[in-house]
């Protein structure tokens, strides 16, 4: 039986009367590159916040690497890395200072933190701005730094909320290669992105959330088969997504309603 990296049971989050996440049962096996998709407001970010401890669920439970999050949050957090929505950087530190801070927060010793910080800054092409404060970084540079901070302690699960947004093509290529290598070595990557091509290229497994409910989950091949009814077809992820979320076009905005614009 493969080791489960993420498992949730009836995970629910309400905001007043709004049910943002409605009893989802996620199952992500260790080492998977997992894409978590959904239209705007579907509950993706809320789910990722719950899974990383930034938000408490209203009900339901979850285990990361077999450890119950509610019972042992510190132990779980030690095993995961996060690039949250908004990146969560301390903008008045330099990139190097921030990485050292995060490394120490995760319990790495000083020498290891120092070495890994330098290597990560080099890899992310941020090493040539040693005295620049994060506040003065461009959006893409901040994103790369947030990624570096998320992996400095060698997490077993990596949660990435829109990791390639604002990152230039060159750096994005290197990052994708890094992430692919990490999954080969057993790291589980849980990624949300609105760019379906990226998800299709990187992820082996996908889940789709819509109006807070999990409407599809499985490998890309399983989803393709589920849609067309035949194995080995060439249905794209975009077609799968639209077919599941858009219910064959019935929920797509009707252009006829905007006739005054055309």
């Amino acid at each position, binding site marked *: 039986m493969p080791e489960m990296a993420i498992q949730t049971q009836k995970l629910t989050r309400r905001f007043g009367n709004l049910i943002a996440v409605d009893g989802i049962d996620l199952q992500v096996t260790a080492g998977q590159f997992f894409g978590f998709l959904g239209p705007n407001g579907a509950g993706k970010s809320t789910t990722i916040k719950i899974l990383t401890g*930034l*938000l408490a669920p209203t009900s339901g439970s979850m285990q990361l690497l077999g450890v119950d999050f509610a019972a042992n949050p510190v132990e779980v957090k030690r095993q995961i890395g996060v690039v949250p929505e908004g*990146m*969560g950087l301390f903008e008045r530190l330099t990139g190097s200072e921030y990485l050292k801070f995060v490394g120490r927060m*995760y319990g790495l*010793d000083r020498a290891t933190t120092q070495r890994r910080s*330098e290597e990560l800054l080099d890899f992310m092409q941020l090493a*040539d701005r040693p005295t620049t404060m994060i506040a003065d970084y461009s959006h893409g540079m901040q994103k790369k730094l947030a990624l570096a901070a998320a992996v400095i302690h060698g997490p077993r699960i990596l949660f990435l909320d829109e990791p390639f947004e604002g990152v230039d093509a060159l750096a994005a290529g290197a990052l994708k290669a890094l992430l692919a290598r990490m999954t080969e070595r057993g790291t589980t990557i849980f990624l949300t992105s609105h760019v379906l091509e990226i998800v299709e290229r990187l992820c082996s497994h996908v889940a789709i959330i819509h109006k807070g409910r999990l409407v599809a989950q499985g490998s890309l091949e399983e989803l393709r088969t589920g849609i067309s009814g035949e194995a080995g077809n060439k249905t794209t992820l975009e077609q799968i997504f639209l077919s599941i979320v858009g219910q064959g076009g019935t929920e797509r905005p009707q252009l006829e309603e905007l006739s005054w614009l055309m």
Partner: protein
Amino acid sequence: MADVTHSVSVFEQIRLVAGLRWRILRNSLRKKNNRLDLIGLIFTGVFGGIMVLGLCIAFYAGAYASFSQSRLEWMALLFWAIFLFWQIFPVLVAGFGANFAFRTLLRFPLSLRAFYIIGLAYGFADFSALASVCWLLAMTAGATVAKPGVLPAMLLIGAMFMLVNVTLERLIGSWLERLLARRRARELFLGLFVLSMISLNFINPLMQRYGASARPAFLRLLPYFAWFPPSLAGHALAAITRLQPARFLLSSSLLLLYLVLFSALLWRRFAAQYRGEELSETAAPARAAVRPTAARDDGPDRLSLLSPPVAAIVRKEFRYLTRNGFALLALLMPPLVILVFSMNSAGWHLTAGGRGVSAEMFFPGMMAYLILILMAPAYNSFAYEGRGIQTYFTAPLRFRDVFLGKNLMLVSVLSVEIALSLAMLAWRVGLPSAHMLVATCAAVIFTIVGQLTVANWSSITFPRKMEFGQMRGQRQSGMAVLVAFASQILMGGISAVILFTGNWTGNLWLPAEAFALLAAAAVGGYFASLDALSRLAEKRKEVLIEALCR
């Protein structure tokens, strides 16, 4: 083809913006924290209101006396008081200003005229403007009661003076906004500002020493002040009362000229903004930095006694302190204030003259003042974390470590400040008796540690984001201010009563013993509270993240 919209009148645009402001306020009140904040603001507003009302009476009486006793030159003084308050107060307490960036309206098809009028109207939304208008109305009432015939002139001059002030205030604000668009410029400005505020304290001692010799020079300068708007307003009213139409015309025309000049300059500034003047803080082109051959290590770990997360937080707090020009300069304040106070009212060298305060009173008083200043930021200690607050919740640590790190840093800073101040006291005033020294030191521990518990609670309950080196919109949560106020009054009250108990009972060591017990209880209470506060932080993490990640 899409429809093309028709133009909207200036009045309609202003109505829409007013509606927008109202909806922003109303919607913000849906959140409990914002409601509490408003309650806190109302409380502080009541104090402001009392001050405005009290001064309204003073301005009414001043104007009444000026006209009834034919001391018309006093009117110029009253106008000067309003003028200085209106122009200087917004710079001093910029946080009270409306923090809705009206320039964001530029994305809409707003005419330059509407943009100008809305910009000017925003000038009346400041506390200083509202208070000044109240005082002008009080002056008008006072003058009219004393001399009813002066009402039309008073209304005319009052309206012109009001427009001159609001235009100038907006003009200064707009220049400052341009000047301070860059973070470094803002921090530099704030540094200079704090230094100038500190320097103000030296005016009295300097006046005492050099006042007599500076007086003739000041008197020589005095006539030039007659050409400034407040004097012109006063002279115009004096002229009309003395039936000197030519002088009235001259003064009011010059006042009008000021209005036209300021309006033209403000129009120019607003026109530049309207055309899309870029003030944003885009990163300057970076110089090609040379990669250091060997990365610098931090050297030996001086915080090795602490757990790694606590040490990391202390280090981060220290870096934040050194990069926050305003906070750093504020640390200069306590020793300097002690120096100034000791020059003014205390010290062995002055006691001989019968004006000094003894070290017995000065020492505890100064320590209380120091704690009052330095503890205030602790009540919103996450203010500068911004989005970084999320790191504390995603990292594998208990929130008590965050409190410990932050509190440790604050206590270290306080210790250094107290040591410096103590040295300053010993030099300027001399040390108090042993029992007073011990009692005050124990009281310091009690009040600091006692407040830390409350401050930690306040920080997670009423968080409010603040930006480094920014002036506009920088305001603590109203409730955090109230909590700090109440807590400091309580601690100060308890300490004062205990200190005086020693005198009343004749047992001089009693306060020291009482404070030692209280300090021990406060330390115990502090450590006992950390776990409960950690649980509370976990419970309130959504509020905390939402407030600080905006």
